[in-house]
């Protein structure tokens, strides 16, 4: 009997401890809102989101984060344009074409790339890519959208590649064999059978990769140049949301409008990435690959 009781206690204790992740997510939301919402006594939600002036230290201050949102979106979209083809093609290579040895090595390479600290990538973009870009293209600054997007792509590629590879690998063998039996080449089988069958997993991979890019901080902080204005060209500097938060939080006096505005920017960033993640979760559940029966 005591053993029965102990089993029940352990089960419920573990259930509670597992639930802590959800509680933590709730706490994150609560404290972001607690510190972020006070800004809306000074500025309306519309002015905050769509205002074009980010001058938090002026008197009177202006708290319009549209330039920051635009900056975040541009570098994320551009990074995806680079990272999606590279990530997907590499995933196809690993899953469908590479010999076993190369496959193992390449998987390790991608894992190491994923582990590369973002501050190191930011540093690399700053001291290597930026000066080179500035000189080669005769630009006022090498710290710009293109440079940032390239560095962000490096961060997003491992995510896209490894999740896509899992999805491609999970495509049942029969599909491929049926396609070969019909006389299709390997290329035709990959493009017309394997990739479409893995499409939900690949979409999840792309969304999570973009989510990683938009939330990435050190790269945009060090490489994006920091201009809080809506960019006119691809070689302009921008100040994406994470960069603004990271750069200014140290100087914003505790409890000031600036402090609250940075937390509110954090809320916007959090909501965007949360939406990305929930969407990815929805897709991977809704279109689960469950073998031949589901197609």
């Amino acid at each position, binding site marked *: 009997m005591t053993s029965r009781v102990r089993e029940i206690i352990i089960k419920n204790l573990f259930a509670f401890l597992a639930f802590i992740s959800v509680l933590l997510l709730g706490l994150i939301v609560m404290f972001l809102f607690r510190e972020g919402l006070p800004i809306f006594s000074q500025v309306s939600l519309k002015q905050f989101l769509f205002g074009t002036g980010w001058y938090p230290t002026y008197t009177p201050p202006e708290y319009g984060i549209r330039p920051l949102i635009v900056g975040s979106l541009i570098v994320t979209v551009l990074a995806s344009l680079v990272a999606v083809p590279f990530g997907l093609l590499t995933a196809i290579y690993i899953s469908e074409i590479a010999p076993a040895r190369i496959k193992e090595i390449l998987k390790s*390479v991608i894992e*190491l790339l994923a582990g590369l600290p*973002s501050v190191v990538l930011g540093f690399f973009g700053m001291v290597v890519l930026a000066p080179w870009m500035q000189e080669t293209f005769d630009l006022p600054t090498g710290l710009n959208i293109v440079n940032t997007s390239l560095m962000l792509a490096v961060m997003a590629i491992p995510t896209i590649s490894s999740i896509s590879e899992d999805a491609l690998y999970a495509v049942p063998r029969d599909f491929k064999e049926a396609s070969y039996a019909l006389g299709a080449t390997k290329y035709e089988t990959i493009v017309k059978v394997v990739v479409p069958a893995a499409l939900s997993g690949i979409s999840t991979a792309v969304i999570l990769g973009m989510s990683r890019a938009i939330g990435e901080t050190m790269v945009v902080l060090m490489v994006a140049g920091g201009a809080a204005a809506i960019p006119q060209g691809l070689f302009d500097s921008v100040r994406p949301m994470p960069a603004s938060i990271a750069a200014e939080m140290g100087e914003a006096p505790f409890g000031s409008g600036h402090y609250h505005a940075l937390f509110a920017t954090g809320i916007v960033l959090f909501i965007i990435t949360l939406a990305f993640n929930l969407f990815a979760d929805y897709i991977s559940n809704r279109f689960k690959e469950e073998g031949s029966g589901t197609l």
Partner: protein
Amino acid sequence: MKKHDRVSFMKWRYLRQSLFFGSVRLSALIIALALLGIVAFLIAHGYRAITWDFLTLPPTDSMTRGGIMPAIIGTFYLTIGAIAIALPLGVVSAVYLAEYAKQGRFIRIIRIGVNCLAGVPSVVFGLFGLGFFVVFLKFGSSILAGSLTLGILILPTIIGAAEEALKAVPQTFREASLALGVSKWRTISRIVLPSALPGVLTGAILGVGRAAGETAPIMFTAAAFFTAVLPQSIFDEVMALPYHIYVLATAGTHIEQTRPLQYGTALVLIALVLGIDLIAIVLRSAVRRKKRW
């Protein structure tokens, strides 16, 4: 279709395939070269800075000379703290998800929670750590606040790795134990967890690597620009390697002059992080090869 057309069509199909395979190989090659290039570049520029003094002395002359010892120690403390928090919680969560939970709404909510936690941007963890640990719980900017923030950040990684390791343990192990009349908890603690240990360990090591390299979560919760003395308690601020790189590269008045120090610090950090990751990768493949079941 004429015979000639059919032949050229077949040729086209194989040409198309070769082109595709070529571009697929090329993209894999470029990615491998990107990693290699970055690492090689940092080694080439950083190795001269790495001396015994660099690793064992504190910075001097307003951080334009000297070493990075306090930053190494700080990163060590923060990482140990993070894993001490995340490992027990993560393993217990994984045990619940893999061994106890039945499909249903509760487990679905936990899974969504873990997935969403994994997707929270690192700077948002920093904001949360500032709002909750530093300000609300009054820990101040400290090792404690930074470790807790990093611990939460790596929690989903640990849960994911531990769950995968638990699921790889054959069902027959559990059944054999249960059939002998052993209780579920004893089965898990004596049979399942020991079998899953190497996999759990791999996840823990990867978590350590991740925690050691993160900057944004510790910027407002733990990291100091410069500390004259080493931390005396968990309520002290610390220097940390990633933050030190950022500070030297952006905030100093002698950015060009301290370039060698920056390269040196970056090299130490990637050697540390990639070394840790490599240990995890090697350990995992060794375990897979040796698996008795």
